[in-house]
């Protein structure tokens, strides 16, 4: 098991290195980083100070390692708009984003998985057709259009819910509903195809031939096997927790990390953009690590490689 984890850790490290390199390269390719980040009108000595701080005068590969060091020590420079340290600016927004995405994540799972499983068990029944139609529309309707429609219906015409801002928990209902519907549709569709594939396997037929009632066959044999591919999608959603709300937060002007990213991009506050991208990448890589560990627990064949080698 350890060996398996070690290899996953290495892959995660490689991904992080590539993300940091990507940000480093993108920053460099878009002209002189100092002027880009500090803004063209910033006083020359501020630009020189920035250049010295980031060692922009040194050869490229020295800058590269300096950049790595900066990333891992958390000093990513100051935000151009309010001069505060970017890491602080980003971290203070995380709680409000999580306030949206964590409930949405649970809605996805609570609605998506049972719907997918039920649809697979009752193929071509009315429920199956409904789940598939919901899944396709969930996939086709972009979140911002769904959000606008919900605002149009629930706040403009019916006036039940506020359409923007973050003053009370009632503001969070529409954003969570928007993300919940999209995510649940995707998960339902995926769980359904995973279940259908498992139900076609011959060990399911063996379980029935053993005399197990159908419900036991589904609960004890089918579900655990269908969980394996579903974990990948859940892992991906887990990773998207921080990044997932970019569009929805903008529509409902919910002060989360997503909205911060959009605003910083709009007024080219690149230090903040850099910090947000790095943080989102780190959480995604961490989420993939969690998924790999879950894989090992649920699917003995992964773990088995390490165990068989020891035997």
């Amino acid at each position, binding site marked *: 098991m350890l*060996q398996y984890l070690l*290899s996953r850790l290495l892959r995660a490290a490689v991904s992080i290195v590539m993300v940091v390199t990507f940000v480093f390269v993108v920053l460099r390719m878009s002209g002189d980083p100092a002027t880009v980040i500090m803004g063209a009108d910033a006083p020359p000595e501020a630009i020189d100070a920035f250049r010295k701080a980031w060692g922009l005068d040194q050869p490229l590969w020295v800058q590269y390692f300096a950049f790595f060091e900066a990333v891992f020590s958390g000093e990513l420079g100051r935000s151009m708009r309010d001069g505060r340290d970017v890491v602080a600016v980003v971290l203070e927004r995380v709680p409000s984003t999580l306030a949206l995405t964590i409930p949405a994540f649970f809605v996805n799972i609570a609605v998506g998985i049972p719907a997918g499983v039920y649809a697979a068990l009752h193929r071509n029944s009315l429920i199956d057709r409904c789940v598939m139609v919901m899944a396709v529309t969930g996939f086709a309707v972009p979140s911002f259009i769904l959000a606008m429609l919900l605002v149009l219906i629930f706040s403009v015409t019916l006036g039940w819910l506020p359409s923007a801002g973050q003053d009370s928990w009632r503001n969070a209902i529409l954003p969570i509903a928007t993300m919940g519907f999209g995510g649940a549709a995707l998960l339902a569709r995926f769980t359904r195809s995973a279940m259908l594939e498992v139900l076609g396997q011959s060990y399911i037929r063996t379980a029935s031939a053993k005399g197990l009632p159908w419900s036991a066959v589904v609960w004890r044999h089918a579900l655990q096997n269908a969980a394996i591919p579903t974990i990948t999608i859940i892992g991906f959603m887990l990773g998207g927790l921080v990044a997932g709300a970019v569009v929805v937060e903008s529509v409902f002007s919910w002060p989360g990390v997503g909205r911060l990213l959009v605003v910083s991009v709009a007024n080219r506050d690149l230090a903040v953009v850099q910090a947000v991208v790095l943080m989102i990448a780190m959480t995604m890589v961490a989420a993939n690590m969690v998924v790999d560990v879950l894989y090992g627990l649920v699917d003995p064949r992964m773990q088995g490689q*390490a165990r068989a080698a020891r035997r």
Partner: protein
Amino acid sequence: MSGGTAELLEARDLARSYMMHRGFLGRTTQVRAVDGVSLSLSRGETLGLVGESGCGKSTTARLVLGIEPPDEGAVTFDGTAMPRSGTSNWAALRRRMQMVYQDPLQALDKRLTIGAQVAEPLDIHRIGTSAERRERVAAVMAEVGLQPHHAARHPQSLSGGQRQRAVIARALVTNPDLLVCDEPISALDVSIQALVLNLLMDLQERSGMGMLFVSHDLRAVRQISHRVAVMYLGRIVEEGEPDAVLQDPAHPYAQALVSAIPHPGKTAARVILQGDPPNPANRPSGCAFHPRCPVATATCRTEVPVLKPRRSDGRRVACHVAHGEAAPARAPTMLETC
């Protein structure tokens, strides 16, 4: 039937191992799939290579054709050394040696018609004008028993037997000197197997080509081969005339293999081997068969037996006991084949 000219195919002490590693960082274990195999084949002769899964017979076939380079040993074809796979003269040599595969549907391209695929070797090696190529394709398709209208059909719309005939037609269209068949009939039904075996034997008589027939089915190998070699865990353990090896197998493993074949009306006592073939990753010391061999002795556990002719009838066998170099641990069960 040893041909006057140099042997068509000569392989000396071939060895090939694969790296099996677990995960991104996991330990790499070396698996010796083929461990010192020598064989020769002359024109018009069929050598049957028989053994259970994991004995290295398919790897040997790929080494002989030069698809994979051997780690040790060498292959010579018609006197010249086999070029490395992928080089241009390796590709040119394909004209003279061809392969028939186990699953005909997988070996054919679903997108192209049968006629186009049978003609492909001619296009690749730019043989003859397009008119001559069409003629040759029609002739070889008739030779394998396919009707002209099959040329326009796609592989999916043919039966298993017809597909395998198409694969054989494609292999024969450039008149190769050597045909390597890797389990050509095991994916087919019994009645279709008979068709393909008859076809291969007729084709060989007419064209006089050499044939290497790899299979786990000893009965099919006996039907088609002039010489048979039994393989176990990467080595040839016995080689000789098919009827001789079947009537009176010398090597204990060959005895077990022959007796294990279920046969209508067979009443003979059967030698049941215990356990499974050992993992090629950790080969037993000395003779690889000793853990399962009913007559294994101390020498068998330490020394690797050499494949050499038996004094009594010249049958080549790799077993200390069979050569009388070691007294059998207990009287070998007298096997009375029906």
